[in-house]
C-alpha cells in the first residue's frame, strides 16, 4: 500500500495522468502514454487495441480503464523468488548518473533493517570520488565497505569483497559499479568480467544484477535495458527519481519486450527512499484510477 499511496500522490498531482473515467478514449490514452515515456509505438498500439475493443462492442462505457489496466499489468513479469544462497551477490549496474551508488546504499540499509548483514563493494574505481561517495554512505549506515584506491581493477575489488563477505559471514554483498553507456564495448565487457569473478568465488553468483534506470529517461531506456541484459545478465530493474515529475513509463516498454521485472523504485535522495515496486500501484497511478480497495 505504501508504494501505491506515495506513487498515487506523486503521479496524480502532476497532471498528464490519464483522464478520469468517461473521457478515457483512444486519443487521450495515446497522448497520456506518450507523455509518460511509454513511446509512440506502444502508445498507438494500446490506443488501437482500445479502439478495436470499443468498435466491437466488447466494452461497455466505464470499462475502458479496467481493460487497459489488465493489458498493462500483463507486461510485468513476476519477480523470481529471492535466492537462498548466502552470501547473496548483487551487482548494481547502469548508465552514468542513474542512481546506482545511492541505490546500493539504500539496498544495504534494507538488508540491515531486516536483520541481515550487508557488505558493500566499491567497484566504481573510475569516476572521481565514487569510492568516497560509497564510503560516506557506508559510514552513515554503519555498514562495512570493501574498497581499493582509485584506478584499481574493479574485478580485483570484487574479488576481495567476495572473500571478505564469506569470511565475515555477510548475508548480502552489494557491488556498486561505474556508470557506463551501453554503447561502450570495452566497458560492457568489464561487466561480463565481474560476472566471471563472482561466479568463480560463489556458486551461481551474481544472484541478482540490477539495472538502475532513471525515471526521466526517454526511449533510450529500452535500448539500455536490451544491451545491459545481453552483456551483463540483468535480472531486474530499479526505477529511480520517481519523486520528480517523470513517470518512468519506459519501464512499460522494457518489461514488455524484455520480460524484466521492476523490483524497486527510488523516490528521493535519503536512505529510506527506496520502495518495493508494486505493478498494480504503478499502473493505477498511471491510469489515474479514482479509487482502489
Amino acid at each position, binding site marked *: 500500500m505504501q508504494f501505491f499511496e506515495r506513487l498515487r500522490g506523486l503521479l496524480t498531482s502532476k497532471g498528464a495522468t490519464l483522464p478520469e473515467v468517461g473521457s478515457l478514449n483512444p486519443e487521450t490514452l495515446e497522448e497520456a502514454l506518450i*507523455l509518460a515515456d511509454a513511446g509512440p509505438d506502444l502508445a498507438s498500439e494500446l490506443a488501437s487495441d482500445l479502439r478495436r475493443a470499443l468498435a466491437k462492442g466488447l466494452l461497455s462505457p466505464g470499462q475502458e480503464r479496467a481493460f487497459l489496466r489488465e493489458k498493462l499489468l500483463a507486461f510485468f513479469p513476476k519477480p523470481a523468488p529471492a535466492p537462498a544462497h548466502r552470501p547473496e551477490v548483487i551487482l548494481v549496474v547502469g548508465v552514468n548518473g542513474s542512481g546506482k551508488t545511492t541505490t546500493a546504499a539504500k539496498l544495504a540499509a534494507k538488508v540491515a533493517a531486516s536483520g541481515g548483514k550487508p557488505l558493500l563493494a566499491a567497484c566504481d574505481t573510475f*569516476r572521481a570520488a565514487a569510492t568516497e*561517495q560509497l564510503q560516506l554512505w557506508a559510514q552513515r549506515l554503519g555498514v562495512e565497505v570493501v574498497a581499493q584506491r582509485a584506478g584499481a581493477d574493479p574485478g580485483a575489488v570484487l574479488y576481495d569483497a567476495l572473500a571478505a563477505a564469506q569470511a565475515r559471514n555477510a548475508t548480502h554483498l552489494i557491488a556498486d559499479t561505474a556508470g557506463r553507456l551501453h554503447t561502450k564495448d570495452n566497458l560492457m565487457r568489464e561487466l561480463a568480467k565481474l560476472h566471471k569473478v563472482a561466479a568463480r568465488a560463489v556458486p551461481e553468483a551474481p544472484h541478482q544484477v540490477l539495472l538502475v534506470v532513471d525515471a526521466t*529517461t*526517454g526511449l*533510450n531506456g529500452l535500448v539500455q535495458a536490451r544491451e545491459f541484459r545481453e552483456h551483463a545478465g540483468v535480472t531486474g530493474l530499479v526505477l529511480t527519481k520517481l519523486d520528480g515529475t517523470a513517470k518512468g513509463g519506459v519501464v512499460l516498454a522494457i518489461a514488455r519486450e524484455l520480460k524484466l521485472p521492476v523490483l524497486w523504485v527510488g523516490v528521493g535522495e535519503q536512505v529510506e527512499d527506496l520502495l518495493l515496486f508494486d505493478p498494480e500501484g504503478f499502473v493505477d497511478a498511471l491510469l489515474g484510477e479514482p479509487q482502489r480497495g
Partner: protein
Amino acid sequence: MLEAVSERLQSVLKKLRGEGHITERHLDEALGEIRRALLAADVALPVVKDFVARVREKALGQEVLTSLSPGQQITKIVHDELTRLLGGEAQPLRLKGFPAPIMLVGLQGTGKTTSAAKLALFIRQKLGKHVLLVPADTQRPAAREQLEQLGRQMGLPVLSTHGESSPEAIVRNALVEARRKGFEVVVVDTAGRLHVDEELMAELERVAEILQPSELFLVADAMTGQDAVRQAQAFGGRLKLTGVILTKLDGDARGGAALSVASITHVPVRFAGTGEKPGDFELFHPDRMASRILGMGDVLTLVEKA
C-alpha cells in the same frame, strides 16, 4: 526501431520527389512521419505539436522553389527550423565582470560536476583565462571531493570550502577569493535538485542573486524523455538561464530533449558533453543535432540526393 522510423520518413519524403509542388496531401503524410520521428527521438509531445504546426505553416506559405522537389523542400524546412530552435549560430562565452561568474544547475545526475570541470578546462585552454572551480554542492555525499579530484586531474584550482555548509557562503567567499587572487572566471557547481523541490529551488535563486552569473547553464542529459519540458519550465521560470549544456551525447540517444529544452527555455544549447574524460566537451552544433534527432545522417546531403 529508431532506424525504421527515419527510414519511413525518408521513404515518404522520397515519394514526393516526382511531384511538382507542395500540396496539403503531401504535407499531411510527411508531417505525420515527422511527428513520429520526433516522438521516437524523445522530443516532448507539446513541442512536437508546435513544431509540426510551424512547419506546416512555413511549407504552405513558401514559394515553390523550382530547384527542389517537395520532399527536399519539406526536409529542408524541417532541418532549418530544428537548427534554428536548437540555437542557430554558435555563441561565444560571455565573460562579464571580475571575476566572471558561471553557474551550472540541473537535476540529479545529469552531469553538472563533470561539466563544470570540463568547462573550466575549456576556458583555461581555449580562452587562456585563469579559472577557479567552486564546489557549492553541499548535499550529495562526496560531491565536493569529486570536484576537487577532477580539478587535480585537470590541473585546475578548486576553492577550498572547509566544511562550509551553505552554498550562499561558499559562493560569496568564492567571489572574494577570486578577486584577491586574480582569477578571471569562477565556475560554480551546484547540487542536483528536482524542480519540484521548493526549498532547493529557492536556494538556487539566492545563489544566483549573489553571483549574478554572466552565464547560467542548465545541464540536461541527452537521454531525457518527456520530462524535459517540465525541467525546462521550472529552471527557466525561476532563473535567467543563458544556455544549455547537453551531456552524454556519446551514447546512442537521439537527444530529442535538446529540442524540448531549447524551445521551452528559449535559450540555445551551447555545449555538448561527449564522454567522461576531461576533453570530451565541445561547442554544440545545432545542425548536426538536427540530423541526429531526425535520424537521417547528414540531412543536407540527403536533400541534395532526394
